[in-house]
């Protein structure tokens, strides 16, 4: 009770001052209240004018993104979709954009509904997780335009553009390059979760490694993913390493270290920002350990590790989201399913950046002819087409 006694003593000895102080407090708080009222008045007035100004010179079109639980800065598909919106604005300044993050799957529907109420010209939803929420909202609001990243609807929905990417095609090129650059004869991959959008990359990548072995009579082994022997078309099943997380970088560090301990010298994480942990481990491992980045050009999305990236196996989410947004803004939007391939540039291998000088011309030439072969359909990206390891 020491504090209280002191307070009582103080009150007795210096009562006038404390009274004055409380009066002062009262005045201050009253004036503070007044100030708030005034500033609130100013606030609404000024916001009204800015709003009016905004409406006057721009922006009848609003593009909105709902992220999945990975969040807007996952350095992966949520970030790519957002980048697509930024690109769309750069192309057409009349477009403005917003996003809403989701912390749980329960947020998807209310987030979408919030944006429908905000009269967004197009709503971009990200990930298969949001497929049913998007479908339900599209059905309930047939005039609202949607685009969903990483999903295909069968049958297609009229007011939803479903964006899907054949990343096994550029994954194949990435696997070939990894095998060509490996000195230890071992390369490794791991995924964020055992789901098709992840394993499709790993399937193509492993196929690329096997193809390299076949044509060069080499024995490079791909660790971390073993495609299932017999699969139905379009499924990407198998056994492999998964972090079951797209955020926790420590897990990426662990997986990459495990793979390197087994002798892998090129690591291909397919796990969003978990890959940053892998990059830290690869950097720590020192010279002659490399990586390939996934989804976006790593030298742009994670430039601090650019010196480690042989290349990036990218997925053209940003360009296709940009195209969808621009078409919605222009009124030429058409729903249905879009499939990104090497042919239409929807998926591609990024530039080699720091490794441009070190990658042999022969390998570069092989990649060019491989790309042509995949486009023409002469070269299969199915790992079952080639003998394993």
């Amino acid at each position, binding site marked *: 009770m020491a504090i209280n006694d002191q307070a009582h003593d103080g009150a007795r000895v210096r009562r006038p001052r404390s009274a004055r102080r409380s009066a002062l407090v009262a005045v201050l708080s009253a004036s503070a209240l007044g100030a708030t009222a005034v500033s609130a008045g100013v606030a*609404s007035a000024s916001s009204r004018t800015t709003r009016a100004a905004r409406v006057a010179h721009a922006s009848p079109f609003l593009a*909105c993104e709902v992220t999945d639980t990975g969040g807007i800065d996952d350095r992966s598909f949520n970030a790519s979709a957002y980048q697509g919106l930024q690109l769309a604005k750069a192309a057409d300044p009349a477009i403005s954009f917003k996003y809403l993050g989701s912390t749980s799957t329960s947020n998807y529907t*209310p987030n979408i509904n919030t944006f429908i109420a905000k009269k967004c010209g197009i709503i971009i939803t990200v990930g298969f997780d949001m497929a049913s929420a998007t479908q339900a909202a599209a059905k309930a609001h047939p005039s609202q335009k949607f685009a969903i990243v990483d999903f295909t609807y069968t049958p297609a929905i009229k007011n939803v553009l479903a964006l899907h990417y054949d990343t096994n095609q550029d994954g194949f090129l990435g696997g070939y390059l990894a095998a060509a650059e490996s000195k230890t004869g071992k390369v490794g991959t791991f995924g964020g979760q055992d789901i098709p959008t992840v394993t499709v990359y790993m399937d193509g990548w492993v196929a690329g490694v096997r193809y390299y072995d076949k044509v060069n009579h080499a024995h490079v082994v791909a660790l971390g993913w073993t495609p299932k022997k017999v699969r139905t078309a379009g499924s990407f099943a198998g056994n492999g390493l998964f972090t079951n997380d797209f955020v926790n970088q420590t897990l990426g560090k662990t997986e990459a270290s495990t793979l390197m301990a087994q002798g892998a010298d090129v690591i291909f994480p397919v796990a969003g920002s978990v890959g940053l942990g892998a990059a830290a481990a690869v950097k720590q491992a020192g010279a002659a350990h490399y990586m390939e980045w996934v989804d976006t050009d790593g030298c742009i999305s994670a430039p601090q590790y650019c010196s480690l990236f042989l290349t990036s196996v990218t997925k053209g989410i940003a360009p296709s989201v940009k195209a969808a947004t621009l078409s919605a803004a222009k009124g030429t939007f058409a729903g249905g399913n879009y499939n990104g391939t090497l042919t239409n540039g929807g998926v591609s291998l990024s530039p080699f950046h720091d490794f441009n000088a070190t990658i042999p011309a022969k390998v570069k030439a092989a990649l060019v002819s491989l790309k042509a072969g995949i486009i023409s359909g002469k070269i299969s990206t199915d790992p079952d087409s080639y003998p394993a390891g």
Partner: protein
Amino acid sequence: MPDQPGARNPAAPAPASSDATSDATSDAAPPRPRRPWPAPLRRLVEANVAVVTFLSVFSALLLGGVLIIVTTPAVLHALANIVSSPGRALGVAGSTVGDAYSAMFTGAIFSPSSLGHAISTGHGWTATLTPISESLVSATPLILAGIGVAIGFSTGVFNIGAQGQLIAGALAALYAGFAVRLPIGIHLPIVVLAGAAGGAIAGWIPGYLKARTGAHEVITTIMLNYVMLNLLNYFLTTRPFQQPGQSNAISKTMPSTARLPHLFGSGLRVNAGLVIALVLVAAAWWFTRRSTLGFSFRVIGLNPRAGKTAGIDARRVTVLVLTISGALAGLAGMASLAGTDYFLSSGYGGNIGFNAITVALLGRNRPVGVLLAALLFGALEVGGRNMQAVTNIPIDLTSVIQALIVLFVATPVLVREIYRLRGTGDGSIQLSTSGWGG
């Protein structure tokens, strides 16, 4: 400050008694220059649970405002020129914070303009009521899991496993949903009971482990969260649970007979889960205050040794508490699944299980307190969503505000000092516990 027990309840003869306490220390001689405020008013300026909580919320919102100011480039830019144009700087700061909080309010409760429109035209009631409906929807699982955690806390059992129990309840409810075909009148109660049973089992395990082996429930419940999370991921890609025709980790959807009906038409998502939650709040109040078993729970929480001496089987109580706590968390998982989501995917439940702990603390482990805290948190979350959609201030701000509220509530001395409150009914968070490992 345990030596002034009377201050917490300055009831009818309050003026006399509280004068007596203060006069005893301040020498009593000179009569006060003016009488203090009348009792009801004075109670308002004295520290008590309600006042401290209210001021904690107020302070958290105030600090949230500061955070908005220092993280918004436009405001910082205006503040940089505060010397040359102070009015504009304050105006920009005020408008930014004002816009953010008014967006939060209109997103969580109602928008006055929309209400006016609905009243004058008779149309648009659904749009007007959507914010409050959404707040109730997001509060529902928090209420259920919150009272579960609170019952544990007030018995001295730290159930940190609400997240895992919630997933267990959701999985069980989902299975009951798609495994059988029944009319809704029979099917829905089975789904509800399955949710409770799933959570109860997940809660019983750490309870049994503690009673049998003394394994501390904090550790076992935390670890079981991971078990459940990964079990969910496993089930989502496995035959009976996975959505047919999908190779993604998504479950089957609940048939219409297994869904909690909407309370006010299909336009508003508020559903019968809220009714279940409210009934259980009342039941929990009755249980802790009026029932023999609840009394023995409280005794064990307040003083395990005295309880044991009085013949209460502490082991049995531990197992029962965790089972009940788990059942309530399981119902929370069921309520989201059968009320709004209708399917499960990986990471189901988000942070509900952990927010439930915060809600229980803020509600001081009392059912009605938990109810109010859950409503506040639900409203903050829904309001935060609208705030981000309107003003682009990230919804993460609401997590910060929620954390600050609890921080202030947990340090009532700080609140008392800031606002110069008298009295010592501090309303601090009191955890009945026999101590770590007890």
